[in-house]
């Protein structure tokens, strides 16, 4: 990576956007649980924001959509749980190690980053299924708990976990902001636009896709570790949950706007809350509704609501038009 010119423009120009990301999230996460006293919902929201940002880094910035990317979340959760329950690790290093494990797993995919998106999407699904079968296998019960789940309640601390998740959710949004303003991000955008021309400019598209992929799987792994910690005990299906931790996240990112800084965060906040409210009334038909939403999004607003919000904000802030 190019550190002399890591930022092309003055990094101070990020402050306004950074504060526009941090302030609303801080308000939601600090006041939210007072208004609606159910911390676990806000905990999940933080986890989903991390996942949305993680997915955005691969899907939004490199154009690769790994359908089964929830596997990194699950590996992060299991890595954390196993290290704490079997090796009595402290929580923080266990979560970091779990995320490193997820990133290591993502490296196995890098040969596929040479291939077109479709192979990639399918192979990540295959990996998801394979790891589910491994972690839920009865033969491995002594290590993973197998189908009976894994417990590590000795370190349970909901408030601390919530605080950590909120801080890291905001941090992951900042990571996306920094990437988008860095030469790394510009290279990623160029790779997505034209994978031939970008190579001629001297960019190794494989290398930069791999970086993006590593960052993304690491963040997913962290989200998994924090989620697992909050549960204290989980079944394999709770973390290897394709609908929630892959499909739903894809919908959030598409709704908000892939490849943007604000889109995935805004999309997640709005749709997650809608999802939670609706799930109180129609639990079963909900996925159908979200499936339809996915189709509508892809067909009619492939860029999500971010560009619309941006226009609206421009109109509010500069009613006479921008210079």
């Amino acid at each position, binding site marked *: 990576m190019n550190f002399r010119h890591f930022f092309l423009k003055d990094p101070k120009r990020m402050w306004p956007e950074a504060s526009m990301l941090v302030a609303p999230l801080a308000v939601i996460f600090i006041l939210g649980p007072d208004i609606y006293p159910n911390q676990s919902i806000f905990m999940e929201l933080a986890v989903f924001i991390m996942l949305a940002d993680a997915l955005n880094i691969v899907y939004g910035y490199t154009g690769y959509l790994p359908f089964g990317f929830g596997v990194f979340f699950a590996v992060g959760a299991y890595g954390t749980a196993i290290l704490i329950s079997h090796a009595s690790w402290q929580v923080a290093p266990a979560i970091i190690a779990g995320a490193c494990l997820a990133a290591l797993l993502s490296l196995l995919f890098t040969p596929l980053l040479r291939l077109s998106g479709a192979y990639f999407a399918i192979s990540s699904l295959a990996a998801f299924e394979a790891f589910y079968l491994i972690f839920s296998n009865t033969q491995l019960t002594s290590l993973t708990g197998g189908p009976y789940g894994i417990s590590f309640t000795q370190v349970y601390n909901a408030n601390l976990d919530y605080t950590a998740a909120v801080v890291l959710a905001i941090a992951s949004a900042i990571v996306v902001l920094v990437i988008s303003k860095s*030469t790394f991000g510009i290279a990623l955008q160029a790779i997505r*636009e*034209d994978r031939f021309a970008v190579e001629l*400019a*001297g960019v190794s*598209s*494989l290398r930069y896709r791999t970086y993006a992929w590593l960052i993304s799987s690491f963040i997913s792994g962290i989200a998994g570790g924090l989620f697992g910690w909050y549960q204290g005990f989980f079944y394999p299906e709770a973390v290897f949950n394709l609908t929630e931790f892959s499909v739903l996240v894809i919908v959030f990112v598409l709704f908000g706007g892939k490849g943007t800084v604000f889109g995935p965060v805004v999309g997640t906040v709005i749709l997650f809350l809608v999802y939670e409210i609706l799930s109180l009334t129609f639990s079963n038909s909900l996925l159908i509704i979200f499936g339809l939403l996915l189709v509508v999004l892809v067909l009619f607003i492939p860029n999500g609501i971010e560009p619309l919000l941006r226009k609206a904000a421009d109109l509010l802030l500069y009613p006479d038009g921008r210079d």
Partner: protein
Amino acid sequence: MDGGAVLEVNGIVKRFGSLEALGGVSLSLQSGDILGLIGPNGSGKTTLINVVSGLLYPDAGSLLLYGRRIDRLSPHRRSHLGVNRTFQIPHPFTGLTVRENIDISLLFGRLGNRADLDQRAEDILKLAGLSEFSEHKAGNLNTSQKKMLDLAKALATEPKVLLVDELAAGLNTSEAEAVARLLKEVRKSVDAMIVVEHVMNFIKRVTEDVVVLDAGKVIFSGKFIDAVKDSKVREVYLGKAGGT
């Protein structure tokens, strides 16, 4: 083998299914050369540029850059070694600004990570006549500006061998003239150049040395004035193109 060649293309074969787009093409570039590569539509000119720049791998044959094999290297490695090209249909990064398009080449190109990034960017923008569009989105440029941006991006990697694919095609006479002058200017900063064009008058203005391709084979290699007289060239190329 001629040790002094900048680029040697030896017996390059490229097939697309049953179509042999290049049937054993050989040519060589010495330092200071500008080689005009001409031939009718579909004769394999762009395919040869694609093979040399690394967007396609040859089925047979070899490429030597200053004596070093490059035919299995990825395009970014070749770019770092000094091979670059423009596209017949320009490839700008449409969502980025003109300046960012050039910055990518300056940052990641052959001499990447330079301290004088801004100065270089300004010089290249000026050369390509794009200074006033620096902050425009590349997608909003017109076709001839996009072609200039392609050239600017290639130059920003500071190439030693530059492959120019139909830069003047579709431009009006005065624009084409400007491009011819520009290419002569560019020649000073590169070691050797291949200029693909099917407008004969244009080639004449840029170089005397030409290679004529037809159906993937070199049918003539020599001086432009002799090519025009060559019976085979007249038949396959000038005949069809109407003798421009």
